[in-house]
């Protein structure tokens, strides 16, 4: 994470002076010999790095959380797969590829949505939300970057879930990394927008957050929306992306083999819902400031 060598201990650090003259006043002769350094402004690059690094640290230092999520997701898939096979027999086995792709997209969506809305709730409870509100970067950009960090983390866990599903069901899918990441990423960007809207509502009405989590079960409907029979459903979050992801992973269609209209619609839906969610979040926090409930729990 660190660009420059970081002092391992305070004693190591004492070799150079701090930013203020008062620090130098209190320094030893060795300290005053070193070149003083001025604080440099952080850029959005630093911000993105800090937010992603924090997410990485929590991921590697507390793997139980991530592993728990993976196990629960696989358990439900197991119930779906083995239970479905008992009931539907060959019919389910024939459509297993589609089910796996849909389930993969669902875990991604749930991860992105709940992590954004839950993260805001956690920050409120920890009292760290105010620190992100009083940032010169602005609250919304920081929240957006935190959302992106959560999506990256969700991709990693969902990739593990996908791999296990393929092994367990002895299924093969076309896994062109760029195609899958771009289409799946744009698909869940719309969900990220919904997460922001839910997060904004949670900031305003704290206890409603748990109820909003129920929305994630609605993602199943969106992922399996009949886009061919009802083309307007392509405008809903996830629906069009889910159809494209099926074609990419089941039929092996490459990213550039999709038409301009398909890709354009995917980007437009993603951008539209993200912008909408971002606006809801922005206005919800503004109202929370007026009501004096921003950060209160």
């Amino acid at each position, binding site marked *: 994470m*660190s660009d420059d060598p970081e002092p391992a201990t305070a004693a190591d650090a004492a070799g150079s002076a701090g930013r*203020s003259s008062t620090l130098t006043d209190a320094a030893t002769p060795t300290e005053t010999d070193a070149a003083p350094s*001025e604080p*440099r402004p952080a850029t959005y690059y630093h911000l993105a790095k800090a937010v992603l*690094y*924090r997410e990485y640290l929590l991921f590697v230092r507390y793997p139980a959380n991530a592993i728990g999520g993976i196990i629960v997701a696989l358990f439900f898939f197991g119930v779906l797969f083995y239970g479905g096979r008992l009931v539907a027999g060959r019919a389910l086995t024939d459509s297993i590829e589609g089910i796996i792709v849909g389930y993969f997209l669902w875990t991604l969506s749930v991860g992105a949505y709940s992590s954004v809305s839950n993260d805001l709730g956690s920050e409120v409870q920890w009292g*760290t939300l*105010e620190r992100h509100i009083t940032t*010169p970067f602005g609250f919304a950009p920081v929240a957006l970057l935190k959302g992106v960090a959560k999506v990256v983390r969700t991709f990693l866990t969902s990739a593990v879930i996908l791999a296990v599903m393929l092994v367990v069901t002895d299924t093969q899918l076309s896994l062109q990394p760029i195609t899958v990441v771009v289409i799946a990423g744009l698909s869940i960007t719309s969900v990220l927008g919904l997460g922001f809207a839910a997060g904004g509502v949670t900031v305003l009405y704290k206890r409603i957050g748990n109820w909003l989590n129920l929305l994630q079960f609605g993602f199943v409907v969106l992922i399996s929306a009949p886009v061919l029979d009802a083309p307007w459903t392509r405008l809903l979050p996830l629906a069009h992306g889910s159809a494209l992801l099926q074609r990419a992973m089941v039929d092996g269609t490459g990213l550039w083999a999709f038409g301009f209209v398909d890709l354009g619609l995917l980007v437009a839906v993603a951008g539209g819902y993200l912008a909408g969610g971002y606006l809801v979040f922005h206005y919800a926090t503004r109202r929370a400031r007026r009501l004096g409930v921003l950060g209160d729990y």
Partner: protein
Amino acid sequence: MGSPPTTHRETAAATDDTATARRSEPALDIEHLSKRFGSGDSAVVAVDDVSLTVDAGAVVGLLGPNGAGKTTLIKCALGIVTPDTGSVSVFGTAVTDDHRAAYADVDAMLEGARNDYWRLTVRENLRYFATIHGVAPDSVATRHARLLDRLNLAEKADTPVRDLSRGMKQKVSLASVLAGGADLVFLDEPTLGLDVESSRTLRRELRRLAREEGLTIVLSSHDMAVIEAVCDRVVMLADGRIVADDTVAALLSTADRDVLRVVSPDIDAALLDTLRTRFEVNAVETGGETTRVDIVAPGDTLYAVMETLRAADVTVESLRTRQPALEDVFVDRTGMTPDGDDERRRSL
């Protein structure tokens, strides 16, 4: 890549003139700020037409009972709560108009909040919050190390915060607030829940940081000892309004000075007349065979009182002196105890 709006961070490239001009602005300027919560009969006026100016480098205590409006005032100053009327400026930048630019200069440790991530180590927290506050963390790594040294946290720099004691967690919270190098820091009840020793350490560190780093600190507390030990100036709030605003010394001078309480069976009416003629007698209480007299006796007056008693051949049963405290001033100005009890009502 772009960077957020900065003010003090640009000082590296700024001219001395810019820095001087900035310093000439008050660190905090609050004008006629009011905030009401709710509406109708249930409406609560949390802050009522408060105006307050804090010069750069000052350490100002916000003193008031629970519900006096301290936290709301701080949140309004931070832009976390939007005031109904009035304005707030931080080093000349209006918080109400341009939050982001103002936030480069200000940070806060709010009451009862963790303020940092307990699953990250102490150093990771400092680096993260410095970045969030708009400072490249590597450029302040030395400052962070020094800060940890000063707060006796250096040995715990790589320990997750959750594994630290309560007092240490509070110090990490303070360190993470200072990590971004804000020039104006709000500390809301920083010693709340700390044991006596931890509270004393934190007070000492706050004094030292204010003196050596030239920080402007606005410290809110209902703990008189903290305010008295750390602050140059005290602003007392009650029912959302400022009821006193002066230096600690000036406020104490308005309180009853040292009071001498004499209890003796030999104090008669004639002696009481003599005492009243020569000194300021606060209270007289006769019970059983003894009489208790409270005499305001600052400095050398004490010797004169004793000489008068000796001349009257009084046998003193007990003798006590009492120093004036900020709490006396507070009770006098607000009629309430720092915990919010109505002293006037209680005395009825």
